[in-house]
């Protein structure tokens, strides 16, 4: 019985290989249009501005992918085609310094003061800070339509209201982009999949940290390919938004 199954695997892989050249993995695709939203994680200065505290680790990847411009293209296209936009931001408050344990990147983020705000109900010093939106995105995010969820506190949306906000609007397909690829973007991809959403990731509208021997962007690309419902370039996502809007 097991042998028969193993043979079936080979048969499946052979068929897929014949169809897609070297590829062994299925290539699911996600329809874009009805019930679809654009979700961006952390479009904030600390990741995307050369003045941000993480630029030393992520800057080269942000520049290579042209991430800043690509995120703006996604925002512009979504707004032009009435695709709802959701932002899942990352903020730390002074009380978060009371955490007794953190993983490696959490330790680093807290050490460098990444995404720090002065309080949950205070915007003192917020304007233009590392936690604020990149200035060129403000027109899109502050248009009165974009949904800004409460902050995620580790990497994923488990502790914020993103999933609720999507469901309250009947969204079940997400086009996902933002920062950073193998941390918050991948955490959002994984949690949204677990919650039953379909997710396509925009692979050049994100970027990640690099440390010696550890390339966060390459890691994310493998996992996106393994687990997402689709991979898109920014150009493809923009075209899909516009195609879905025809006839409206």
């Amino acid at each position, binding site marked *: 019985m*097991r042998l028969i199954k193993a043979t079936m695997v080979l048969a499946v892989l052979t068929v897929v290989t014949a169809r897609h050249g070297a590829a062994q993995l299925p290539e699911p695709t996600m329809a874009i249009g009805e019930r679809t939203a654009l979700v961006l994680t952390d479009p904030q200065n600390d990741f995307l501005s050369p003045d941000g505290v993480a630029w030393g680790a992520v800057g080269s990847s942000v520049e290579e992918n042209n991430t800043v411009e690509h995120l703006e293209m996604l925002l512009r296209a979504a707004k032009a085609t009435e695709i709802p936009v959701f932002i899942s931001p990352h903020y730390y408050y002074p009380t978060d310094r009371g955490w007794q344990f953190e993983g490696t990147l959490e330790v680093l983020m807290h050490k460098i003061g990444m995404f720090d705000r002065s309080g949950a109900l205070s915007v003192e010093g917020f304007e233009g800070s590392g936690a604020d939106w990149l200035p060129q995105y403000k027109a899109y995010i502050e248009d009165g339509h974009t949904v800004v969820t409460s902050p995620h506190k580790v990497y994923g949306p488990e*502790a914020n209201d993103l999933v609720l906000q999507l469901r309250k609007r009947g969204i079940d397909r997400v086009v996902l982009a933002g920062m950073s690829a193998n941390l918050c973007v991948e955490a959002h991809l994984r949690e949204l999949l677990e919650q039953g959403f379909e997710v396509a990731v925009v692979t050049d509208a994100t970027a990640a940290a690099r440390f010696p021997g550890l390339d966060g962007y390459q890691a994310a690309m493998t996992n996106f390919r393994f687990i997402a419902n689709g991979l898109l370039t920014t150009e493809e996502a923009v075209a899909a938004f516009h195609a879905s809007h025809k006839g409206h």
Partner: protein
Amino acid sequence: MALPNPGMSVDRARTALVVTDPQNDFLSPKGVTWGVVGESVTENNTVENIDRLFKAAKDSDLPVFISPHYYYPTDHGWRAKGALEALMHEIGMFDRSDPLKVEGFAGSGADWLEQYKSYIEDGKTVVASPHKVFGPESNDLALQLRKRGVEKVILAGMSANLCVEAHMRELLEQGFEVAVVKDATAAAKVPEGDGYQTALVNFRFMANAVWTTDEAVQAIAGQTVGAK
């Protein structure tokens, strides 16, 4: 910018071993994924290393939790799947005949690897309900850990960048500390990417500690590992 090394101490009253998918379809040469994961399982000596973790935990009375992966016939009615989900369903991975039937289960791809059965079936190991994608979001693992006062998890099993990484990520989000045992896991290698190398990057970025099986066994036995 250098990466910190948070480390994790093992407080035996609050620490557990969690193993994902210690099942034939991943770990047996007869399993349906052996063609893509076998090389990595062999390189890491994964089967033996998981066995050593089970043995060390049982010898030290450290609680053990299993988060298994099962699909039922109704799961084949899913409309949307990611690439690996599509592949798993195509090859019949972890298929069971029914949520309430074990007909054909013994020795199947969904069953435990034979050599782990004495640890898992000792009446003490907690077997959570199945996860249905990759992470423990839809099963009772976090609840079972909390019900026993567990706050720190030593994590191993299959496969590194899918279910192990998904469990690491969700447990971190749920406020647990997690040490991943990097050679008591393995992953698929396909032209699209090396799942194991990918997992190593993310373990290093996110976990509280990344240990070898040797280090984990020492930590379970009460010796200090990975200074802060």
